[in-house]
Structure formats: C-alpha cells, structure tokens
C-alpha cells in the first residue's frame, strides 16, 4: 500500500486536515446530511432536508480558463451553483491563462459563457455579486512572476472579500502540464495553507484534475508522487466527467435500495454483462491528446472500469466514502484479463465513411494524426471477475468513436430459461432477458422480457419495459459539474477514485496495451458502423452478440 492508501483508509487525518471539525458531509447514498466533527452547527439538522450544504468562504482558481471545458461546463456550473444559493457570500473566481486580459475581459468571457450555457435562468443580481469576485491573472506556467502575481491576487481577495485563505485549484489543462503547475503552486507558496491561528479554522488547499490519470501504471504512479509531494491525498480530487455523481448514486440506489434485483445479480442468473460507451463524434481537435492514448486508455481505464466496479461490487457496509471505495477496490483487484489476449480483445480505427448522413474523414486523415498511427479509436475487451458472485460470467467492455450514436449503458444479459414449455417455433423471436442501466443519454432503466404476441396461437416475442429518470423527475438533475464543483468546495470526495483505484485499473489495462503494442495494428471500420469485425468475432466465438448500438 502506498502512503496515499493508508490515509485514504483512515479518513480525515488525525493531524487536523484542512477542514477537520468543520466538515459537514453526506454519505453518497444518504439524503440527509450528517454532522461530524466537534463543532456541530445547531441550525443543521439531518431531518431538515430543505437546507442544502453550502460551501464555506473560498476562491476557485481555474488554470486553462480559455479552454472549451472551462467555458462550456465550469463557468456555467459556477453560476448555476450561485443561482441556487450554494456558493458562499464573497465567493471568488480567478482565471489563469496565457491571454492579455484584464479582470473585466475575463468577467465578460465568463458572462457570455454563463448566458449561453447555464442551466438555470440568468439573473442580473446573481451575476452582479458573482462578477465582483472575478479576477484574471495572465501568464505562462513557466513564468514564476505570474504565479507570484496569482498568490498576491488570492491574498488580496482574502482581504477584500473574506475568502479566508481557502483555495481550490482546478487544472483544466493538458496532463503534461500537471507537474509544472503543481510545482509552481508549491514554489509560490500557494499550495501551503498558513499555520492555524487561534479562533480561526485551518484554511484548506485543494487541487482538482481530470482524467487521464497517467497513461499506464508507471506514469500514474509518477503523477501521484508529484501530486502527493505537494498536496495530501485528501486534498486531491480526480474527476471523471463522464461519470457524474448522480449516475453513480442512481446505480447504487437501484442495486441496494431494492430487493428486486439482488437475488438475480449473480452467476446463477446472469449470462454475461456488456458495458458500452459509444460516441458518434471523431477525435475533433484533440489529435495532440488522443494520438498515442487511444480508446482504451481514454475511456476503459477510468469510465468503464468504474462502471464495472459499481456493477460487480458487493454491497458496501455503509455509503460513506471509505466503505464504498473498499468494495470498489476489492472487486477491481479481482478482475482478470483473458489468457489469450488475441482472442479476448479487439481494437479498431475508424476509416472514412458516412455517419448520420454526413461524409466524415477517417482517423488517419485527421489533422495531426500520423498516417501510420497505431492508436485505436475502438476497443473491446473481455474481463473476468474472480469472485464467488461472478465466476464464469464474462464482462465485455467496449468503447469507440464514430459509432452510429452516442450512448453508454450497462446491460446485464440473463441466461435463457432452462426449459421452455413451448414449441420451438413459438419462441423463435424470444431473446435473452436483459436489464439495461442507461447512463446516457436519457438516463434510465430498461427491462427486456418475453411477452405473448396478441391474437396468435402462441408466439412469444421480446418487449421492453422502460423507466426514464427524466420522466419521473424532470429537470431536477443538476449538471455533473455542479455536483462535482460543490463537492470540491465543500471537501466531500467520496465518489471520486482515489489513487489505488486508478492503479488497479491500470494493472488490468497495462498487459492489454503491451500486447497490442507488440501485435499487429487496429482493424479499420467504416465511420458510422458499429465497430470492427474482429469485435463481433470476439462475441461470436463465445456464442454471444453485442447489443445493437
């Protein structure tokens, strides 16, 4: 175990972590906030569910503020939080980027981004108080001066707006800059909270960064070392924006709040599990990032492995962060790759083709991609989970770009009934029963089962029974980034993977990547098709088939 894990298992460290004593946390599955720590706020009552948790005074510093993500997701999410009254008075936002901007220019950019992309209605009053705390610091990541200016800027915000020395740093930058930014934060003293003074809470420092968490086990460890030199593990937030907290909680609620599913959630009934994330887009302008990374590292390592863990894990003893993580780590450590990787994996590269009525380029013709690139844009792997519950039940994971449509889902495919008291012709159109958890779009659950076709002698055919979250709870789900930012500002990390989970996922993927590097190259598939023939062959060999996308 690394030092990170020791800490992780122990929860808030005994040496008074940044927010020990002030933390109000809710278990991921529970609806009522639970007050912990020595200072209980008498105004908070777990039964009073109208009062949401609100972040304490703080500054959010975003690096890479000119990027798409910052404009389309982060800034609107900040506004939506403010509009819902979840940001503290005096909350301040600092942008850092290589632009010759003044505070006003950045405020204008934020304003436009919010107006265009925010989920909740635009209110001048909310914007006015938010914009008073918007600052911009121009500079490069190599520029010591710029970071010193940033340090001055946040210090003056503490004075002017009472943000109390609490800073969150959001690294919305390519991963190669992570070490540089983190070192600069260390050098400029931004990463170190000042010594505690009597009567005041210890200020906190938190850092947020997005996947990819390295590109193999070794680099993930190196990245973790860089981070842990500067930030303690409980201050590091790893974010997978594909996997919103809502989705995770929906899966947990479905599995563990019901009695209906648990009895059949095992090898006795399940034939196999398919976990899919399909994208209809190509790599767009992300060639620099994508080339050499590929679909498996980009999506399977984090997103699909997390979905697998949530599907396959045992019931946690409680829904607090540590119990949940313990179960996920347990099941991830039981994942085995197939013995013959040639038969148990498939990969592809999209070729030119027609997608959704539009002619599109092939991967090798995309700008910035070498004509002989071996990067895969489609990956399918078969995994086994060596536990009593899942022995002999394969988990098939697949992801790809330029597939017919955008969707992610977890499909539990059930065994066929051991005996059908019908004539073979009656059940010709009967497939396998299935329970499908749709992650996106149109989040919900589908159950597929056989039903008699009306007015025939006796004919059984598959029908679907559907539940959509959007139908029973319209408009109530906040954007994933809202939940995520609020968790960071409150200091509530339970559902984000800690370093150990990241390492376990890489341990699964590394042998596959090594095998691929040494054997052959990705098989082309036309854009707009469902993937390369080898992926279909993978399933056919075992008498199974992918669900149609």
């Amino acid at each position, binding site marked *: 175990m690394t030092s990170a894990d020791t800490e992780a298992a122990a929860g808030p460290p005994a040496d008074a972590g940044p927010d020990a004593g002030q933390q109000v946390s809710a278990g991921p599955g529970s609806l009522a906030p639970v007050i912990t720590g020595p200072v209980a*706020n*008498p*105004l908070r009552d777990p039964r009073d569910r*109208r009062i949401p948790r609100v972040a304490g005074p703080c500054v959010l510093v975003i690096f890479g503020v000119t990027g798409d993500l910052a404009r389309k997701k982060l800034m609107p999410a900040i506004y939506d939080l403010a509009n819902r009254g979840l940001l503290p*008075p*005096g909350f301040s936002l600092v942008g850092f980027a290589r632009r010759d901007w003044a505070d006003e220019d950045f405020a204008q950019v934020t304003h436009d981004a919010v107006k265009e992309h925010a989920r909740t209605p635009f209110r001048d009053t909310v914007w006015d108080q938010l914009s008073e705390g918007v600052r911009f610091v121009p500079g490069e990541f190599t520029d010591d001066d710029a970071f010193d200016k940033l340090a001055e800027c946040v210090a003056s915000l503490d004075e002017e707006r009472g943000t109390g020395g609490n800073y969150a740093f959001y690294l919305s930058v390519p991963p190669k800059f992570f070490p540089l930014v983190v070192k600069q934060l260390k050098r400029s003293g931004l990463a170190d909270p000042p010594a505690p003074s009597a009567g005041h809470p210890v200020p906190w420092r938190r850092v947020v960064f997005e996947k990819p968490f390295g590109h193999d086990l070794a680099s993930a460890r190196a990245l973790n070392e860089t981070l842990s030199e500067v930030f303690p593990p409980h201050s590091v937030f790893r974010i997978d924006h594909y996997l919103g907290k809502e989705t995770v909680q929906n899966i947990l609620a479905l599995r563990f709040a019901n009695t209906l599913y648990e009895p059949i959630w095992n090898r006795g009934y399940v034939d196999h599990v398919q976990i899919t994330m399909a994208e209809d887009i190509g790599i767009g302008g992300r060639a620099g990032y994508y080339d050499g990374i590929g679909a498996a590292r980009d999506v399977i390592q984090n997103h699909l492995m997390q979905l697998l863990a949530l599907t396959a894990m045992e019931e946690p003893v409680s829904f607090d962060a540590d119990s949940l993580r313990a179960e996920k780590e347990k099941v991830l450590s039981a994942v085995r790759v197939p013995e013959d990787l040639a038969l148990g994996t498939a990969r592809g590269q999209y070729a030119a083709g027609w997608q959704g009525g539009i002619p599109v380029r092939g991967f090798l013709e995309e700008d910035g991609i070498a004509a002989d690139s071996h990067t895969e844009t489609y990956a399918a792997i078969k995994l086994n989970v060596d536990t009593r519950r899942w022995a002999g039940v394969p988990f098939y994971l697949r992801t790809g770009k330029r597939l017919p449509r955008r969707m992610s889902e977890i499909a539990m495919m059930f065994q066929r009934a051991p005996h059908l008291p019908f004539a073979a012709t009656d059940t010709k159109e009967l497939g396998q029963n299935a329970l499908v958890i749709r992650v996106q779009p149109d989040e919900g659950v589908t159950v597929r089962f056989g039903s008699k076709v009306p007015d025939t002698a006796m004919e059984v055919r598959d029908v679907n029974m559907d539940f959509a979250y959007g139908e029973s709870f319209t*408009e109530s789900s906040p954007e994933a980034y809202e939940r995520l930012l609020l968790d960071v500002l409150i200091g509530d990390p339970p559902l984000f993977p800690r370093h150990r989970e990241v390492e376990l996922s890489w341990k699964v993927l590394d042998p596959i990547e090594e095998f691929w590097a040494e054997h052959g190259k990705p098989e082309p598939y036309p854009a707009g098709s469902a993937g390369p023939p080898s992926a279909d062959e993978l399933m056919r060999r075992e008498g199974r088939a992918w669900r149609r996308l």
Partner: protein
Amino acid sequence: MMIDLAETTTGRIHEAIWQARQRLGGPASGMVLTLVIVTDETAQYDAVRAASEAAREHPMRVLAVITRRPTASSRLDAEIRVGETGPGEVVLLRMYGPLGEHADSVVTPLLMPDTPVVTWWPGIPPDLPSGSPLGALAQRRITDAAAAAEPHDCLASLAAHYRPGDTDLSWTRTTPWRTLLAAIMDQPHGTISGGTVEAEAGNPSADLIASWLSVRLGIPFATTVSGGPGITAVTFDTSEGEVSVTRPDGRVAILRRAGQPERKVALHRRDTAELLAEELRRLDPDEVYGETIAPFLSVAPAAVGGSLDGSGAAP
C-alpha cells in the same frame, strides 16, 4: 389537448383522459403524484399555472377543485388539459350546489393509483387541514399563512391543529434565508446571546425564522417591523460583536460581521411555482416545521383560543 365536459361524472372524465393520452401516444406512466388544489374561480388561474410549472420538475396530475354557487342544484363540470403545459395533466373540477360539500367523492376516483396525494390551499387556510375531507385523503397538506387576514393568528391555528404531513408556504419561503444563516453558523462565531428578525408587518415567514432560531439555538429571537419588502434583516448578537444579514431590496443580501469585509450574496424571493416545486420534493412529514410552529401555541394564547372555536382563521 383541451376537453370540456359539462354535467359529467368521474367515469366520463377518466375515459376522456385515457383517450386523450392514447391519442397523444403514451400512457401516463411517469407521473409521480396527484396534487389537489382547493381554490375558487378567482384564484384558480394563478394556482393552476404555478402547479403546471412545478409539474416540469414533478410530473403530476393536478385536480383543481372549484366550488361554485352552493345554492344551485348539484352538478359537475370538468375541463381537462392533457399535453398542453408539459408532462403533467390538469383537470379543473367545477362543483355546483351540495356536491361542493362532497368534493372528496369526486376527487377520490380521479387520484393516480398507488402514488402520493398532496392537497394545497393557495388561499385562506382551512381551520383543520388534516380534518377536512380533501386534506384527509392527502399525505401532505400545503397551506399558506401569508394568505390569511391575520397571518400570525393563522400560525397559531396551524400550530394548534398540526398533524405530521402539514406544511406551509410561508415556511417554504424561509429556505433561502435559513440556508444562508446555517452557512454563516458553519463558520466560527462567538457565543450567541440573542438576535432579531426584521420584516414588513404581518410577514409569517419572519415569525417562523425567529421561532426556528429560538428553537434551534435555545435563546429568544424577537421580530421587528420594517418597510419590507419581505424579510429585510436577521441579526445575531454574539460575544464577538454583531453578525447581520440585511436585504433592503429583496434581491441582494449583505453579510456584515466584525473584523471581516462586507460580503454580498444574491437572495431573491421566489415565485409560487418554485415554492411548490420545493414542497413536492419530499413527501414525508417535515418534523422541523412541526417543531418550529409548535411555540406559536404559547406565544399567542388569545389567537389560539380564537382559532379553536373556529373564529381565528375561518375561510
């Protein structure tokens, strides 16, 4: 789709809703509750509108019960709106004559099966929400003390007849304030010795905040009168000086505390649809409301006495 049915029965209303749903291409499987609105002809438009907006968050069947001309002979007219304003469906039920006394006999067959029922009185609250026929069939009963002629007396009456499942929109209105105050108390502060809640005259939400603070903190909070709009300030007297939140314009609140810069935060007043949407988010009894309203029994003994014999907050 709008359907008018004159001199009708619940059976025919059912039939009409079902046919409308079929024609629009889907059953009403996603509906999560039935909202019964007890209203009159003048107030029904605003109430139904707010409910239709709230239905975007909570798809539901809205049954607006409108009693007309109690002296006429019994008659039921229905106006059905399906697929007009969003995911829910609305039925306006106009009841003439003695039928108005038996509204529950019309409402009961029209409730969505196996889902919760909420009854809402947008106007003057009834004497005994849980005891009225339309309140008795609901598990949540929403009143609005602010609509009463004497809101403070009304709170006393609601306290006297409180049953788990009762709630009041003047309590819902306090949520943003209470959220802000709770967040302020999350930060270190001196020992609180008392405080005040300042609002325009006859604002039941201010009374409720003062009561909530008194109950939670165990020290008295007074209410004082200002020019409004709504609640204008909450002040804590602490051992480290005064902590105050003022909101003179009903939009932006200013937080002041000794030794710290002034901070602003948007704190706007919400419309009825938003209040209703918050109310419908949880359908189990709001115990904190029950505890907050309980002291009104002893605070205003005269009013309670009045309401017990039915004269305090008569409809």
